[in-house]
């Protein structure tokens, strides 16, 4: 079994939605040095498969607060409980109605969840063809460092 898996979720062609992918990409060398397995995936629904076979999983994705009001670029961290991720994390812009939050909730409902740490970034713009918005681009280095820290903590436990 893998000890720590780090999953970056996103669409590389859709503005801030790429942020999860970009974060794990830039942290890949550090993460692999820690012995973590690094996976990039294009759709939240694949996360349900990526939660098995690991003791702990860090999921990095773009999010949107449930009723807005969170500044773009805000980094959100949450740990999954028996009911999955807390609702205030917001929708991880899930594809086809089944995203990271649903995947984690489903694994929790089946008593099949590893320890899951979710690191999200509030998005500004997810338009197809756009790059990262300035607000999100400016937190990318901090986000990547945060992901490495989370993976290090999970590796040590």
């Amino acid at each position, binding site marked *: 079994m893998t000890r720590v898996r780090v999953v970056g979720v996103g669409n590389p062609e*859709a503005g801030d939605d790429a942020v999860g992918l970009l974060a794990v990409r830039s942290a890949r060398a550090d993460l692999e040095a820690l012995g973590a397995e690094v996976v990039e995936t294009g759709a939240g629904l694949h996360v349900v*498969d990526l939660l098995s076979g690991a003791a702990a999983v860090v999921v990095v994705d773009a999010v949107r607060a449930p009723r807005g009001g969170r500044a773009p670029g805000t980094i959100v961290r949450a740990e999954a409980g028996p009911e999955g991720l807390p609702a205030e994390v917001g929708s991880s812009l899930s594809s*086809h109605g089944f995203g990271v939050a649903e995947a984690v909730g489903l694994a929790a409902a089946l008593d099949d969840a590893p320890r899951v740490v979710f690191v999200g970034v509030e998005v500004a713009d997810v338009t197809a063809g756009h790059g990262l918005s300035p607000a999100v681009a400016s937190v990318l280095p901090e986000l990547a460092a945060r992901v490495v820290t989370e993976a290090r903590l999970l590796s040590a436990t």
Partner: protein
Amino acid sequence: MTHRQVDVPVIARVEGEGALHITAKDGEILDLRLEIYEPPRYFEAFLQGRHFSEVPDIVPRICGICPVAYQMSAVHGLEELFGVQVSEGTHDLRRLLYCGEWIESHILHIFLLAVPDFLGMHSAIEMAKDHPELVKKVLDIKRIGNDIMEVVGGREIHPVSPRVGGFSRAARKRELDPLLPRLEWALEQMPGIADFVASLPSPSLPRDVELVSMVHPSEFPMNEGSMASTRGKRWEFSEYEAVTQELHVEHSNALHSLMTDTQTPYHTGPLARVNLNADLLTPVAKDCMARAGLTIPEGDPFFSMAARIAESTLAIEEAIRIIRGYVPPEPSMAEVVPRAGRAMWVTEAPRGSLYHRYDVAEDGTILEAKIVPPTSQNLRHMEEDLRMFLPGVLDRPDEELTRLCEMVVRNYDPCISCATHFLSLDLQRV
């Protein structure tokens, strides 16, 4: 007098953002608009000026759920234009890849999105608490579909090995063989799963419809064939833009499709495919379709879930057959020399017929691209379904009405399924 206005605004991922607005008065629908914003328009522009060899890497990014469909419509169309003949092994491997996508997409849709609706539950998470063994089982089946796509297409965000001319790297027999016992196990589960689906209480919407899909003389259509409708029409891929017509509608960024001759909407997708290709279903798929309660002909969109059961089973049976007889294509790529002209092709995405057209210059540069996805073809039909279905249920409480709207839209497994999942119902009474 009751005047209800139901607004279903939504936030969705890149597959599309959409909303459903309904205004009703005295049980009559005054206004109904399904709004959707789809990404292919951007990708059509993005493809202009690219070399044809880049197309298989660009188009799968349009949809996280059906990347294979986008690749397959593109590579087959370009190969036909360039006069490329691919080997039998390449044909098989592409069909296997598509089987993986059908298994994953259909099982996901049936159990994680549709069945909770039919059970009156809020989500698959709620369902997992009541039916944990079933949910574990279907997740294992879904994972087989995903693993087929990884072994054949490459372990990346999108499949990377499909090329115009074949595969950059063809899967080896020993990579595919470990999938066999898992597929055989999955096939054994399908009749019981079909029985479960048949046991679900379902609304009905009997209506006279025109169903459209590919047809093929000898195999259930995925990558090759021609077009047909249940009204007896037959046409080639090259006639697609003449036989069907895209209509710009003010309330939607997506275009709505109509049959050109009758100016009426049509329905593409699994229900259309099994209606037009019932004889080509594999043995267990036929049995599972009957168990799920679907008899052909059937136009009621609420039978789409039973059609997905039949097709998931078919995809499992076909994957088993292909892997057992698989001989890797050697070489894995045919030689490709571009030529100027127009490429037009359709393949069957999990959610329906996906048309691509490319105008190509002599050196292989894409001059213009056109993509007609199944969701936009079905949009007008979905609106009609809602108009017909809603008057009978308008007296239901808000929450139930919302759920019923979701179910009607979800029959089509649109790329806006997400759109109807995070509902925040805004109801106004005057």
